[in-house]
């Protein structure tokens, strides 16, 4: 199952507008520099369709999102606030993607990784949808991964 990037962008734009009241713009290569620390949120979908959604962003975007969601100054947003904000965003994306999938599918709770030197991978899956966009100067990417093989020992 492939996901049209335009559909993912529309979905992300709606969520960003409704939750953060912030617009997003399609990413232009080279428009955003490297970020020393980033966050990745992952939510899994299992059932009639199996896969995962990865949201990747700089920590500063997570700080901005947390400040909007929790009505605080960005400087006052603590790490758990940042994690909750990004988890909520990927949860909403997952919920919307789930609505496009055959019934019955279940969403896991999100897991959020924060750091400066890490890679997050989902073995046994392949990307079936990918978008990158810019929000307030921060580059955000969303990747939808579909399970490609059966694990051997899951009961």
């Amino acid at each position: 199952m492939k996901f049209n990037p335009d559909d993912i962008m529309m979905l992300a734009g709606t969520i960003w507008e409704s939750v953060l009241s912030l617009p997003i713009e399609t990413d232009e290569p080279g428009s955003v520099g490297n970020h020393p620390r980033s966050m990745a949120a992952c939510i899994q979908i299992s059932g009639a369709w199996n896969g995962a959604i990865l949201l990747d962003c700089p920590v500063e975007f997570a700080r901005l999102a947390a400040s909007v969601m929790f009505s605080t100054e960005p400087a006052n947003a603590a790490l758990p606030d940042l994690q909750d904000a990004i988890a909520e965003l990927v949860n909403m994306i997952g919920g919307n993607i789930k609505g496009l999938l055959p019934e019955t599918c279940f969403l896991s709770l999100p897991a959020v990784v924060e750091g400066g030197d890490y890679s997050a991978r989902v073995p046994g899956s392949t990307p079936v949808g990918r978008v990158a966009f810019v929000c307030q100067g921060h580059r955000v990417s969303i990747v939808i991964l579909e399970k490609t093989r059966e694990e051997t020992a899951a009961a």
Partner: protein
Amino acid sequence: MPQAQTIESAVNPNLVTPFINSVRDVFDKMAGVKITAQEPHLKAGKSTGHDISGIIGFSGAVAGSVVVSFPKAVAERLVEAFVRMPLECGTPDFVDAVGELVNMIAGSAKPYLGGVASISLPSVVIGQGYTVASMSSTPCVIIPCSSPHGDFAIELCIARQAGA
């Protein structure tokens, strides 16, 4: 013990014991490695901060995530015992092996959690100085584990769903 009472009041012990049993069984049967699980405790503050983390999600009657975190050297030795050959950290085969180990631990525990639950694809994080967090409203339990190849930890952030 106050700490044990805190754990029991925060997390159903019936959700913890299956993981203690499954981590022992999986490493014993699949890698020939004896694991000793130590006293579980509630997670306080940031996560364990290890180098390699395998994450798997639960949904259905039980929802949440399980994170198995290893220092790099320990992961390399346990993976070598599992696949019977050394694998370089970070290679696709190494990532697959870590994901498979986590999948087996979760899959072996799943039938004993009560109700019908699904497990997700495993995610594998490799790096240094990163933290892994689940939704902060879910209480997390750390199960410290020891092996002849070194220590690692299982972090359970799961809860039974209402009505399940």
